[in-house]
């Protein structure tokens, strides 16, 4: 056991954080988020060139990293920069493609190619097994029909990895398959929008869309579980990065904002609440490390759910306290802390929320 990063990974971490620190301001981030794409293609390409995308995937699949620890150092930096560039869609799609042995696609993603992973549906909430989209065999391919909901990065993606049912009922674990779809293909209707925290997502309607099966037919659920667990780990690390900024900004504000003739940081009630926030941050960091270390192990689901549950609880508390301790200024668009707080809170809606993962932990405990 060891809690220090390897030299290589420390370099990866330093590079990612330096890029974020030196290459964008919060205004540039907002500008990118407000653009038609919802992110900066140029910035994303630069980061791909630095190897920050390839680091998310294992070597044997066309990347040069892919461990839980590689993923968290990259996403912690993504969180510190509130980057809206499609790291998460790429991680999800790439992880699915890597498991299917589609190394060409993984390499394309590592090089900055735009893919999205469409697994959720309007009625599925956080239930992975809920897949109503159908895939019917036609010739040597398949035809997809159905709707996909809140698909991150779909509006700009060239390729979509889509879950669809080749057999079974809408909520059966068996009978789900994964398909590669050309985003420009006939019958693909994508309605893009921005999330409340500024990230590009879309609703997708599929009508008689021809698609290519990837992985084993009917066995897609295992990949979906692995992909969403990886995504959950990534957003937990992203939340950690955002939480660190919330705390640092609040700390600075407490030291500089004066009321009643002294810095508000000298008021003990705020000091003690600040201390509790720092304690929660360390707990989040540990939970993220635990989940990263078990991403490829038998206890993956327990530790990922534990991290997501703890991030959901502690992250929201830190975000709300960061706003409250700032006061009015944090309620304004122009002040950065509000956007970090929004991201931390909204991450609870990705890959299952606080209660969903508490439920998973209970189920796993019963099984054990």
């Amino acid at each position: 056991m060891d809690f220090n990063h390897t030299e290589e990974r420390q370099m990866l971490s330093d590079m990612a954080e330096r890029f974020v620190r030196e290459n964008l301001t919060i205004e540039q981030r907002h500008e990118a988020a407000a653009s038609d794409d919802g992110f900066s293609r140029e910035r994303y390409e630069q980061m791909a060139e630095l190897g920050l995308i390839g680091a998310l995937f294992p070597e044997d699949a066309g990347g040069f990293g892919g461990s839980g620890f590689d993923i968290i150092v990259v996403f912690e930096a993504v969180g510190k920069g509130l980057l809206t560039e499609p790291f998460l869609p790429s991680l999800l799609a790439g992880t699915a493609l890597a498991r299917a042995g589609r190394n060409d696609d993984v390499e394309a993603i590592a090089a900055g190619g735009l893919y999205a992973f469409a697994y959720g549906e309007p009625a599925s909430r956080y239930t992975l097994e809920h897949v109503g989209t159908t895939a019917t065999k036609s010739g040597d391919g398949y035809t997809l029909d159905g709707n996909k909901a809140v698909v991150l990065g779909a509006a700009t993606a060239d390729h979509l990895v889509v879950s669809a049912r080749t057999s079974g009922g809408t909520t059966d674990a068996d009978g789900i398959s994964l398909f590669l779809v050309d985003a420009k293909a006939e019958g693909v209707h994508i309605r893009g929008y921005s999330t409340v925290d500024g990230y590009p997502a879309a609703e997708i309607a599929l009508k008689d869309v021809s698609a290519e099966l990837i992985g084993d037919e009917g066995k897609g659920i295992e990949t979906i579980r692995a992909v969403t667990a990886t995504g959950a780990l990534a957003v937990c690390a992203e939340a950690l990065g955002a939480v660190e900024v919330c705390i640092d900004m609040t700390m600075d504000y407490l030291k500089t904002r004066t009321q009643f003739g002294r810095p508000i940081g000298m008021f003990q009630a705020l000091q003690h609440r600040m201390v509790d926030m720092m304690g929660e941050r360390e707990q989040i960091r540990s939970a993220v490390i635990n989940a990263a270390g078990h991403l490829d192990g038998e206890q993956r689901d327990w530790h990922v759910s534990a991290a997501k549950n703890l991030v959901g609880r502690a992250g929201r508390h830190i975000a709300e306290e960061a706003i409250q301790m700032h006061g009015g200024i944090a309620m304004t668009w122009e002040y950065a802390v509000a956007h970090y707080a929004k991201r931390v809170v909204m991450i609870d809606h990705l890959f299952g929320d606080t209660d969903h993962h508490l439920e998973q932990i209970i189920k796993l405990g019963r099984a054990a």
Partner: protein
Amino acid sequence: MDLNYSDDERAFRDDIRSFMETKLPKDIAQKVKTKKNLTKEDYERWHAALNEAGYLNAHWPTEFGGKGWNAIQRDIFDVELEAAGGPRIVPFGLNMLAPVLQAFGSKEQQEHYLPRILDGTDWWCQGYSEPGAGSDLASLKTTAVLDETGENYIVNGQKTWTTLGQHADWIFCLVRTSNEGKPQEGISFLLIDMNTPGVEVRPIIMLEGTHEVNEVWFTDVKVPVANRVGEENKGWTIAKYLLVHERSGIACVGDALASLDHLKHIANDQQKDGKSLADDPFFAARMAQIEVDISAMRTTNMRVQQAGMEGKEIGPQVSQLKITGTVIRQTINDLTRRALGPYAMPFVSEALEAGSNAETFGPDYANPLAADYFNHRKTSIYGGSNEIQRNIIAKMTMG
């Protein structure tokens, strides 16, 4: 003690209810229930309807046309208004300036301004906070200096967090007229016509992208001395008076109950693993617990208001109700956001404008709710943050 409504109270509730059914414009109620932005014209229509029935100034002292409602009646009015989807009365003129004029204003000021507040001629906003003076209001720096004629103040400085200032004709301000003695001792209370040269309103965009508050800048703004309320340098007394004055609405009980109903509606509609989210034990527990808290708060609020009307000192309890009320409503906002699952994420801000036909995503109720959660973080910050309220209570109870 008796928790049952008397016949009179039941009759009163029925009156209010039928008023809401017949006089509250349906389009406005619809906007409120779907959380669309209200226009100035919406507020004006609603205030006119309330005024016609004598409800607009029901909370005023009877000698100024108020209805002398007791705590129970005020609770009923608040709850019925919110349940019907009535917009809350814009408080700046009616419940903030009016009481000040009634207590400190000259006969002329009362006769001139009060009717115009009632009939909507003047839309008022509040000029208290400044960038450097938030919690520490007494440190405000906006200056008012008498000109050579001695008939006008020349006002310079900046106010902030001015809610709905973009609609306002007039602003009431705390300004510094002296630097002698304690900061509290050099403050005066001025009424300023927003159309005076040198007054500039700049929007502040909230964290979720809406525009409801503003900065108001004053550059050599000429204000007649006649527009000062009360004595020069005695403005702090007025500010303090307002702080402890009639606050029967401070806990926002009606809003909490209406928000809980909305949450229940959503939780019943949302499906989780084939059953309604309202049947999920964790979510049901969160909703049940907040309902328990609201039920207790409603009684606390009526107890405190009744005691206040009997002349008892209720300062600490009123501050406490502000804290309890905001904690409860923020919890409901949080649960409402959570209830949406992934569909809390899509946000189309144009769709908040009434009449907009911008497409939204997910269930029809979903679009505004995450933004609403973030927006309502303000409630524990404005009007004296919960930290300031705790300081006030501690000072009053622990010496």
